[in-house]
């Protein structure tokens, strides 16, 4: 019996030689001679070392400063401590716009954005949580709009029409102690979440990131591009502009959904900062030197990516479209909340230009890179 099996196995081995070879699914072939480079490791290294890590470090400085001011305010709520807390909050919130786009690795796994910037704030939910105290979960999705910068916006800018009224909520109101406790709880939650993400980046993920150079869905380039496109599409185009302007909701204007609703004069600054961060990241602009390095742009150039209709360089038309979007955005003055109502066409115009950029990033760029968008559902059910 054993012998027969051996014979069978031998036959199989012989048969094997007659079977047709499987075709090799090879990666896109680099196009020598084109400007740019298809060296993904160089790109990932530049993005990690000269943009992502320095941006996190820079954010950490302003964020830590905000935490200090928050603690001081919680310890002794006063006009002075409130003013300082607000200033630090504005600075950190602006700096946050330069790191929210890194939706890859630890930030993606731990959904950092959800603990920092889901708006509009759910003010009814925040008040509920204040009363409930520690048993209110800050981990379930329904809690995302009850924490982070938007919740802080409400708690330091939105509790009353005057500073006196706001301060009274932290001093003389019946639930003042609970409100202080909640304020501390959400700043502590932000700190925990950010520290987790930043520690992973500095504690080994950087090497994982630059060394996972494959094109498959689990490796850095695919995850980075997916997170980058998703950020631009959902959190800049839709979140900051499309939803408040009504461009995505059949013209139903929703000014109450602007970012930083209670401190209305910074909404546009936040949007512009976020948009510029996307442009700089695409072009690989180093935070340290201001010089461009290996990036999505150079990678696309290395692949020889062209616009399918005009045949011009894809990166040129992406950058041109980004510039048009930025120009439209910069043309809006005042605050976004009021502009959405009184100058709606201009805001919708920003959305329209951003939508064109989304198509270039989401379709043309990913096609050229042979990367699949994984954050949308393709199964049709």
């Amino acid at each position, binding site marked *: *019996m054993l012998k*027969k*099996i051996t*014979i*069978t*196995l031998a*036959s*199989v081995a*012989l*048969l094997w*030689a*007659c*079977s*047709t070879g499987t075709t090799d*699914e090879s990666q896109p072939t680099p196009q020598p001679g084109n400007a740019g480079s298809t060296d993904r490791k160089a790109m990932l290294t530049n993005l990690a070392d000269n943009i992502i890590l320095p941006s996190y470090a820079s954010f950490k400085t302003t964020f830590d400063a905000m935490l200090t001011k928050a603690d001081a305010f919680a310890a002794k709520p006063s006009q002075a401590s409130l003013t300082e807390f607000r200033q630090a909050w504005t600075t950190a919130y602006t700096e946050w716009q330069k790191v929210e786009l890194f939706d890859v690795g630890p930030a*993606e*796994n*731990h*959904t950092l*954005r*959800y603990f920092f910037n*889901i708006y509009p704030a759910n003010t009814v939910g925040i008040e509920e949580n204040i009363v409930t105290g520690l048993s209110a*979960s800050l*981990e*379930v*999705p*329904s809690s*995302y*709009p009850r924490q982070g910068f938007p919740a802080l916006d409400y708690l330091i800018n939105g509790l009353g029409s005057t500073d006196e009224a706001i301060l009274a909520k932290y001093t003389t109101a019946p639930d003042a102690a609970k409100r202080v406790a909640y304020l501390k709880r959400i700043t502590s939650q932000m700190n925990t979440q950010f520290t987790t993400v930043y520690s992973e980046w500095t504690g080994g993920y950087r090497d994982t990131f630059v060394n*996972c150079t494959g094109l498959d869905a*689990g*490796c850095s380039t695919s995850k980075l591009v997916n997170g980058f496109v*998703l950020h631009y599409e959902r959190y800049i185009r839709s979140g900051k502009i499309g939803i408040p302007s009504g461009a995505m909701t059949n013209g139903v204007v929703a000014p109450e959904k602007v970012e930083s609703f209670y401190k209305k004069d910074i909404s546009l600054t936040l949007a512009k900062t976020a948009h510029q961060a996307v442009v700089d990241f695409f072009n690989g602009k180093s935070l340290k030197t201001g010089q461009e390095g290996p990036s999505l742009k150079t990678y696309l150039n290395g692949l020889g990516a062209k616009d399918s209709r005009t045949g011009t360089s894809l990166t040129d038309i992406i950058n041109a479209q980004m510039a048009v979007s930025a120009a439209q955005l910069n043309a809006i003055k005042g605050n976004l909340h009021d502009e959405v109502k009184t100058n709606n066409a201009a805001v919708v115009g920003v959305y329209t230009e951003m939508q064109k950029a989304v198509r270039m990033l989401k379709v043309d760029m990913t096609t050229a890179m042979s990367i699949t968008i*994984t*954050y949308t*559902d*393709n*199964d*049709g*059910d």
Partner: protein
Amino acid sequence: MRLQTLSITLLSASLFAFGLTACNNDDPNVAPAVQLRKTIDYASLKDTATYANAFVDDKGVKTVDLTNGSNQLLMFRAINTYNTTAVSTLTPVDANVLKNMFANTSSPFSGTFAALNSAAVQLRAVTASSVADAEKERLAIEAGFTEMANASKSVSMTAAEGKAGKLGTYLVDAKGIEWAQIIQKGLIGAFQLDYIGNVLLSDKNLSADNTTLVAGKNYTQLEQNWDEIFGILTANPVYGGKATATSSGESFMGSYLWEYNKEGFAKIHPALLKGRAAIVNNDAATLKAQATLIRQEMEKAIAASALGYMTKWKTNATNDAARAHAFAEGMGFIYSLRFAKLNGGDAAFSEGILNPLVYSSPNGFWGLTNAKIDAASAAIRTKFNITN
């Protein structure tokens, strides 16, 4: 006696295989008597060949009959379609209708599916049929029908935590569970994966009678087993033949092989052709290799789907409907991991993930956190050896 027959079969196969080693230049007419058809040169198989036409007897008459497999796939589709009527017509569904469709009793099929009422097959008998306690899994599927029917009574309401109803366009129960998805993804595992992978492709069935024709038919039992697989997997002439960059052109198991295991997806149709040719050639080794490939790729797809939907739960910050839909899909796939037997999947493995993930939580879906999702994903990665 059986062992002896097996030895002889193996010996014949070996001898026959030896005959082939001259790279298929031999005359098919000298094939051993036990081989019913002319030998098929594997190299002659086109990856885009229409399966049903690719295999004929020596007179050129088709030997492929997809009726049984196709009818089972249609029954699956009928159950799924009926479930969708809850939302599309705002009408509750009836658990008894679902149970009758599952067992093909009391003529439950109507409209374009009416012909199934007289079909010779049913899903219930071939659901979870490889496991020791098949009835337990069948009852679990039927319990899903009851949950589906109960939730559908609230189809005109808007769902919220603790309240059944519609969440976006999805019908969920009070715990946020979309039962239509649990049923669909559960049957992908309990019916398609288990019946194809663990029953029809089991060693026992791969050694089914291949020397005599089934009474009144132009196929052997082994040929029909293989054809049944094709019919259960796809309604298309070429599996994967309608795939585009953005759509599989397939459904159920067939579509998730595409969405979550693209590399494997491309290998399936060629393996189905080659395996069928191996049956004709009485080439047990090649047959087994195709069977193993198909099983591995299906299991890989189910595991990757479960992981993918856990991740998709995370990619929707504020869209509860999208999140609930993704989660139910993932939950159904995790249930189905129990049938991924090549990777050691069993009921204890699936339940061990689902209990802490969702069953033990009083508010189900609404109580999910990153930590719970991460624990489920980690368990799947470890079991299926998936590194990223």
